[in-house]
């Protein structure tokens, strides 16, 4: 596992160094295809490997957490998180005594239900997928944070359903967040401040207080329409380029007799420029 996980890093580095040199020695057609395929494969493998390496470290640590589903750390700091594992329990929930003592009995049930939901729905997989997609398409750089927030909301909704009390779920979140916030104000080396973009607690509390989420068929339809439009436009752009190229060729071949050597040269040049532009 350890060696395999590092392989994409090594291959990527090798490709970056040796790529240009290899390009000179290979037949151009094979070279172009081979180099692009290798680079794309490497980019994806690189992102996957980084993620797997993190998961691997976490799992190795988790194996030492014992057999209990809930692991309590006897520490005053306010902390709670879920660790995915591959055994039949699906993971461990780690909570500090500081967190347990901050919450009321009912609020603790919310916390347990929230973390259990993360493990049961394998939310780390959704987050990993979002990370990989963002690596493949850098325009989607905001996607991981959005998915992060959504999986938190998902777990919140699950906890609200398990305890059958949205207000209680909101209160548990508020109390834990305020206590953790208060703790961060005190200078202590053990509690570093961590911020995850827009996955703010305030939005989650507001959503819980706003009532059961409504179905949004209009938004779903809009997303689907946008996706379809994106796919169609890609196909259309490809067809368009081909058409323009054909037109240019037709134009060039239509008057072969009356053309002078200079005009022929000019047409050649224009076609080359056009083709060059279309390809880039």
């Amino acid at each position: 596992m350890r060696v395999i996980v590092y392989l994409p890093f090594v291959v990527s580095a090798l490709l970056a160094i040796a790529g240009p040199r290899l390009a000179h020695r290979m037949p151009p057609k094979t070279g172009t295809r081979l180099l692009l395929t290798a680079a794309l494969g490497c980019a994806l493998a690189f992102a996957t490997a980084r993620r797997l390496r993190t998961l691997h470290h976490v799992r190795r640590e988790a194996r030492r957490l014992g057999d209990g589903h809930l692991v309590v750390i006897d520490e005053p700091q306010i902390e709670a998180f879920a660790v995915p594992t591959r055994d039949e329990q699906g993971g461990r929930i780690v909570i500090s005594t500081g967190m347990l003592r901050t919450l009321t009995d009912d609020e603790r049930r919310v916390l347990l239900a929230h973390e259990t939901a993360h493990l049961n729905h394998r939310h780390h997989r959704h987050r990993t997928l979002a990370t990989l997609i963002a690596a493949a398409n850098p325009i989607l750089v905001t996607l991981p944070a959005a998915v992060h927030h959504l999986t938190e909301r998902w777990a919140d909704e699950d906890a609200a359903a398990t305890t059958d009390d949205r207000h209680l779920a909101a209160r548990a979140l508020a109390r834990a967040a305020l206590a953790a916030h208060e703790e961060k104000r005190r200078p202590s080396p053990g509690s570093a401040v961590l911020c995850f973009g827009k996955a703010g607690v305030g939005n989650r509390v507001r959503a819980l207080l706003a009532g059961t989420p409504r179905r949004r068929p209009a938004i779903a339809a809009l997303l689907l329409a946008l996706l379809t439009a994106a796919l169609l436009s890609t196909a259309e752009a490809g067809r368009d380029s081909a058409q323009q190229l054909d037109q240019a060729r037709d134009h060039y071949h239509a008057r072969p007799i009356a053309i002078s050597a200079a005009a022929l040269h000019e047409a050649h040049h224009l076609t080359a420029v056009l083709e060059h532009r279309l390809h880039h």
Partner: protein
Amino acid sequence: MNATPEESPHGRRPPGMLEDELLAVLWATGRPMTPADVQVHIGHRLAYTTVMSTLTRLYRKGLVTREPTGRGYIYTPAVNEADHTAQAMTELLSRRTDRAGVLTRFVSSLPPEDEALLQRLLRGEDGP
């Protein structure tokens, strides 16, 4: 209370959740408790026999220790070496942000503008 107190409103309780809940109660109170103490603490949501059998399961798993008292046992949460691993993990989590995507935390950031909202919520619910 209700006739069937151990059933959640949706008639389902994730397996192991009961054990988690009672273990959390023992840790939160920080003092040895009898099954009756635990039952009082959680507001009699569970039947006495359920509390007792759950505590026995926790004892068999080595997650709690117990001492004989009167006709039954009094339970204390067990500290084991897993505690240190968990502590190490928390430290790793604070240092490495990429772990944040793998480990799912209960609460993360709290923007200043949200602080007041949360405080109002708690005051409104818990105030006199």
